[in-house]
């Protein structure tokens, strides 16, 4: 079926990105323009289109498939995008970033993410990966005068290109086996090669693809870039990439490994188990030692990548649905927490040190309360979304007999609670040092945070309906 339908959400986002660029081009110097509005329209449109496409299983050009799995990730990405747009409106000018470029690049990145989750051809996945990566590299270094930002962007770019090369090499091996880069063809070829000869080629392909994905989701030992990139990037970009890139990369990861490469489970599950365990442990243990909130949340995001990998390692239907649900809960909470950091920062005073949060409760009780909820959700406390997400991931692991991984997971989540609580201790139990200038939040930003907090509680208390959608979403990727 050769229709455009499956690409509609992606196209809408691309159009809005172009609109943002044009708006910047015709903007007179000094004129204020609500460029974020274009993004909002585009993202709401993409979300609506995704809802209409639900259950349609549309395929475009044979390589883009809008199955429920891709659409679920689309919705997550739209939520991430919308929250980012609203927060950005407050902070972009204040942080000295060029608004037009910023919004256009963010939207292009989102379109790449959507494509990555929907692609059913390794080359298209690679293409999408590059679209989103290039945009995010530039976003990381968008504050050109900022040395840390430039360094972060350069590191991210260099290591990222390296991993892209690995990924491409893996595609080449897969092509050698199957004579095609289509996922379904590769899947059949691998399934038959499993039965016949002991060729090392499939192993190379799997290994190299795993390296490429591990880099993008920042799994140990391919996580090195994460803390530096997250710290150096403008906070709002950190918020965006820590959630968006992860959602897209895990979408493709699940699609490639749990359907195409599923016949080789015996080979890659042990390797990924080790990576998952190392990722969970390193992320939470090293996170304890950080005094910069962005670095701390970078390590926290590494730990969360470990939990998500657990869902892939479980390699059962519960695991796949758990990854989807977890991505949603993580996105809402992490975006909320980093969003608050971004909203409180200014160009002179980034407000990203732990001690900057001292006494936040006294001057901004509501903001401190919201931050607490997001952190508790990241730490996996009931009755927030994070608890249900962790519950789902760990039950998937236990159902597959990975008791040890589940135990490592829960223990490392206790360790991570320690550093989430460090922020809470700062906010509530430490006196305010003088009066640091904290900017006032705009109404839309407060509303977006309110939405995130409601979503966090909704997914924590009444997750049943969303869980159903997550379960429906994974029906199609076999």
């Amino acid at each position, binding site marked *: 079926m050769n229709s455009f339908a499956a690409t509609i959400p992606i196209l809408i986002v691309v159009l809005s990105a172009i609109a943002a660029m044009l708006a910047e081009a015709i903007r007179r110097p000094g004129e204020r323009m609500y460029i974020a509005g274009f993004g909002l329209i585009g993202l709401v449109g993409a979300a609506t289109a995704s809802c209409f496409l639900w259950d349609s299983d549309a395929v475009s050009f044979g390589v883009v498939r809008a199955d429920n799995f891709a659409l679920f990730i689309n919705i997550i990405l739209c939520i991430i995008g919308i929250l980012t747009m609203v927060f950005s409106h407050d902070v972009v000018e204040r942080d000295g970033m060029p608004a037009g470029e910023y919004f256009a690049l963010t939207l292009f990145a989102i379109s790449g993410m959507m494509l990555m989750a929907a692609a059913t051809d390794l080359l298209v996945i690679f293409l999408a990966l590059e679209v989103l990566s290039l945009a995010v590299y530039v976003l990381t270094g968008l504050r050109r005068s900022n040395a840390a930002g430039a360094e972060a962007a350069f590191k991210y770019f260099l290591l990222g290109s390296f991993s892209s090369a690995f990924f491409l090499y893996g595609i080449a091996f897969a092509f050698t086996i199957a004579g095609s880069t289509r996922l379904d063809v590769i899947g059949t070829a691998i399934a038959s090669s499993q039965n016949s000869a002991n060729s090392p080629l499939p192993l190379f392909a799997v290994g190299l693809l795993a390296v490429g994905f591990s880099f993008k989701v920042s799994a140990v030992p391919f996580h090195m870039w994460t803390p530096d990139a997250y710290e150096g990037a403008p906070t709002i970009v950190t918020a965006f990439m820590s959630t968006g890139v992860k959602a897209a990369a895990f979408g493709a990861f699940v699609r490639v490994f749990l359907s195409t490469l599923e016949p080789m489970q015996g080979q890659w599950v042990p390797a990924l188990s080790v990576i998952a365990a190392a990722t969970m442990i390193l992320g939470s243990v090293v996170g304890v030692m950080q005094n910069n909130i962005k670095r701390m949340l970078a390590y926290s995001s590494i730990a969360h990548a470990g939990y998500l990998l657990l869902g892939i390692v479980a390699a059962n239907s519960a695991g796949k649905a758990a990854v989807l649900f977890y991505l949603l809960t993580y996105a809402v909470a992490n975006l909320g927490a980093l969003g608050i950091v971004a909203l409180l920062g200014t160009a002179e005073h980034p407000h990203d040190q732990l001690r900057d949060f001292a006494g936040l409760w006294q001057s901004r009780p509501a903001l401190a309360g919201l931050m607490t909820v997001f952190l508790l959700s990241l730490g996996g406390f*009931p009755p927030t979304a994070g608890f249900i997400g962790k519950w789902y991931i760990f039950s998937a692991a236990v159902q597959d007999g990975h008791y040890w991984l589940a135990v490592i997971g829960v223990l490392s989540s206790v360790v991570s609670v320690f550093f989430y609580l460090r922020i*809470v201790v700062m906010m509530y139990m430490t006196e305010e040092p003088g009066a640091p200038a904290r900017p006032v939040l705009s109404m839309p930003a407060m509303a977006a945070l309110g939405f995130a907090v409601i979503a966090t509680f909704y997914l924590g208390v009444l997750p049943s309906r969303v869980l159903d959608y997550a379960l429906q979403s994974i029906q199609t990727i076999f």
Partner: protein
Amino acid sequence: MSVLLSTIVFLPLAGALLVLLAGGRGDRPDREGTVRMLALVVSLVAFAATLFLWWRFNPGDPDFQFVESRTWLPQFGISYRLGVDGISLFLIVLTGFLTPLALLSSWQSVHKNVKLFSFFLLALESAMLGVFVATDLFLFYIFWDAVLIPMYFLIGIWGYERRIYAAVKFILYTMVGSILMLVAIIGLAYVHQSAAGTPSFNLLDLYGTTLSWPMEKWFFLAFALAFLIKVPLFPFHTWLPDAHVEAPTAGSVILAGVMLKMGTYGLLRFAFPLFPNAAHYYAPYIAALAVIGIVYGALVAMVQPDMKKLVAYSSVSHLGFVVLGLCTVTVYGLQGGVYQMLNHGVSTGGLFIVVGMLSDRRHTRLIAEYGGIKAVVPQLVAAFLLITLASIALPGMNGFIGEFLILLGAFKWSAWFAVFAATGVILSAVYMLWMFQRVNYGEITNEKNLRLADLSGREWAMMIPTVAMCIFMGVAPGVFLKPMEPSVLRTIDRINQVRLAAASPAAPAPAVKVGLTGGGGR
């Protein structure tokens, strides 16, 4: 379907939100009085509701009553299930009883953001009540974990000097245990699903799940660890003195009065009946730790210079008795254990209130700072004396009944445990009376103690119910023991039904032996 239990559980939470609204924006000292009164009224209404539950409770029925069951997460077989039986009934009433006292106890000492303080205390009450009524393991775990957050804030914001250290230690320590229980809960439900076909977290479905011996062993240990840390049993007790000493009085009252009982309740409701073979196998070891804890807690309490720390260690000792009673799996032991949970809640809650009253007056809790205050504050000392006597299990007071039953059960089970545990009774008299004597009798050595005020009306309002309960529970134990008995017998049946482990027939051999002796109490 009755909604009485849901009402009881969520009433304090609704009140907490109301308090938050009534308190206005930020810290408003002008609304302090309103907020306090509102919170107190809410907690009293909740107490009345728990009394209503007791009144409507059918004492002859061993099963869960007032059962509520609603589908919640059908994908996992998780339901919103509540129920109350003779064991949990009085713990609910105890929670309702202690929360108003805790609010009253902080009337003078807490002035920083009273709104938030009352909010956390009421939210805590909701979570604790939820722990006692949840009969779905998932729901239970949610309440179990939710308890930690308000307590963390209560200690961390309104505590004393080292409050942050104590709060973080408290939350991490308890989480390590409980999160392993989470894995065990998932595993247990999954085994049940493999056997029964449908997933379920309903406690009644999960009772009697057949497990292989290694699995049963590990699951039991995970559950037991969570509960024993909470109790806290020696050697997992180190978080308790810190948390108690640093917590504000209200926090200590709730912590000692109710939260520690969540651990012993969990053993009795979940760990033992869910994994009977493992329970019988490990009971002697746990009992041994309990006896060590009884003696150790008493000895350490004896040398404490700080009254609050002394009472905290006395809790370790007293809770050792409860665990010992439960480990015997005899009617006497279990009834005594449950009864002692209630006694300890009332008397230790009372002790913390008394220490709080002294500390409100003098801003110190060191025993050496006092001495001879009987002449200055006779009423306070009279109340102090009665609660102290209750705590050391004087005949006629509540503690006596509980400890006597436990020792009776322990003696039938294994005499040596009883002999060593009995020394704890004597030691408790030593450290409590010695402390009492140093604080209240003798000459007044510190002249700051000359101008202390005696009990105020508010303090009378706290002391009268506490002392009355200590005496009432000492002279009329039947009122409490009778409704408890059918459920206790049912629980013993569950623990004593030794099942053949599917995978390894050799392993449960020691379990059967202990099981038979354990049945001797019937």
